[in-house]
């Protein structure tokens, strides 16, 4: 799949923002009002910025409100509604916290729960795609949630939780890669089933339907990224999870260590998210003799 920057930024940043809202909503981070304001603003900038970035991906962004109507069938619609609802509820919680110094536990829990639900909905946009076997797995929501929790804990200075979350994330990410590598073969789709000619022998593409490229090939038959997949996986794993985990769990906590852990994790997160798209193979590639 084409790793569009807008979608990578959207999923990565909004995940971090809603991950922060989970921990702030659960009552972590007992700080003075002014500091609280900074953290709340950061959560909003990440979640809102991410969502805004997703609009750049649209052919008609001005019609985005229409996307809030199909919550009964569409995960994308649910994600839109939930993110707005979450930001609204969390906003009330945050205003009461910052301006009235009242941290209402129940409201916070609701905001945290909604945040988790939003992150889950984002992941389901991808996990529901049967046409992309690598995504069509329980590992997709598990990964998206763990990325959000690990990043959210890190950004709300929960050193210990963040450290262990990073370790859990590393394991989940490795499992997701290994399962994902065999997902296409396991899906049962090949050039034989795609053309119905499999029973007649070995199928290969003799001639493409057009001499140039097209929307489908640009969007869904992205093969460039896979060349360096292993190197990029090592970069994502080490900078995204291993280095932050070691920094957080093995070294004495401090601002410099925290900043390093955040920068390292972000680099890993973006690398892993880029791979999430670039490595994912769509079955339509079979019609082009590619995957």
């Amino acid at each position, binding site marked *: 799949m084409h790793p569009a920057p807008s979608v990578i930024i959207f999923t990565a940043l909004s995940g971090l923002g809603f991950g922060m809202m989970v921990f702030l909503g659960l009552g972590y981070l007992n700080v003075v009002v002014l500091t609280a304001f900074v953290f709340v603003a950061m959560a909003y900038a990440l979640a809102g910025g991410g969502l805004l970035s997703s609009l750049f991906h649209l052919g008609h962004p001005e019609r985005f409100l*229409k996307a809030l109507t199909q919550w009964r069938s569409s995960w994308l619609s649910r994600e839109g509604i939930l993110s707005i609802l979450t930001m609204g509820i969390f906003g009330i919680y945050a205003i009461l916290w910052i301006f009235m110094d009242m941290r209402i536990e129940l409201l916070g829990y609701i905001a945290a729960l909604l945040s988790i639900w939003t992150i889950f909905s984002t992941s389901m946009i991808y996990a529901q795609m049967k046409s992309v076997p690598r995504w069509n797995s329980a590992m997709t929501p598990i990964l998206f949630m763990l990325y959000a929790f690990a990043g959210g804990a890190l950004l709300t200075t929960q050193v210990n939780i963040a450290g262990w979350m990073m370790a859990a994330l590393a394991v989940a990410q490795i499992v997701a890669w290994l399962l994902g590598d065999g997902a296409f073969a396991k899906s049962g789709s090949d050039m034989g089933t795609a053309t119905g000619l499999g029973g007649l022998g070995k199928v290969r593409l003799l001639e493409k339907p057009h001499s140039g490229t097209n929307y489908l090939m640009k969007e869904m038959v992205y093969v460039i990224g896979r060349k360096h997949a292993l190197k990029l996986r090592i970069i994502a794993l080490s900078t995204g999870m291993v280095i932050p985990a070691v920094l957080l769990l093995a070294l004495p906590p401090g601002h410099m260590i925290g900043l390093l852990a955040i920068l390292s994790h972000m680099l890993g997160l973006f690398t892993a998210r880029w791979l999430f798209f670039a490595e994912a193979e769509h079955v339509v590639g079979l019609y082009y003799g590619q995957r």
Partner: protein
Amino acid sequence: MTSLPQSTEKKLGLVIDLDTCVGCHACVISCKEWNTSNYGAPLSDMDAYGANPVGTFLNRVHTFEVKQDDKPAQVTHFPKSCLHCEDAPCVTVCPTGASYKRVEDGIVLVNENNCIGCGLCAWACPYGAREMDAAEGVMKKCTLCVDRIYNENIPQEDRVPSCVRTCPAGARHFGDFADPQSNVSILSAERAGMDMMPEQGTKPVNKYLPPRPKSDITSDITPALTAQSAETGGFLGWIDRTLEKL
């Protein structure tokens, strides 16, 4: 709502005969011609006369080769357009309700006024039947020529999809699969009509007729083609014999 209907009154769709298709791409062109000037936004071309032309098409013809170890290769032309699936994944993912499947005839359509151009439906389709128009920013797909098949302003024989009307080989057939006595139902039953990628669980309405096995044909006609008569009679035979003697 982009929920799928429980069932549709008719199941309009195509039978595509992979045995008959000659790969002339006439259906591709006639589809583009009809659909660029009728229902919805035109099918734009980008850089049409430049080095890297790219355009929106609703129907494309791929060509495959099938080979068994001990047999000659067999070429199959493979026209591909929307299969108007009963369990269309492109419909349910749509966040705006722009994508829908019609209850009356099962045609999967896009209401372009509601399309935000997110591209999710094109991702959900395993067949690559949907293409985003680069100029309009909305999703385009086969409408089964909904503006022809019910059009009372055109002659009766033209009230079929443009691709079917134009196919010079008679490889495309249009009809109602809900009616077991229809042309398409009978054709599909007689020739073992196939679903594309059945493992995707989309329940396509369109059916593909497999190529007839070529090995049967070769085994019958091979002797006739290879046998050469030892003696030639008449004038040519006389020349042959005379030249032989020289």
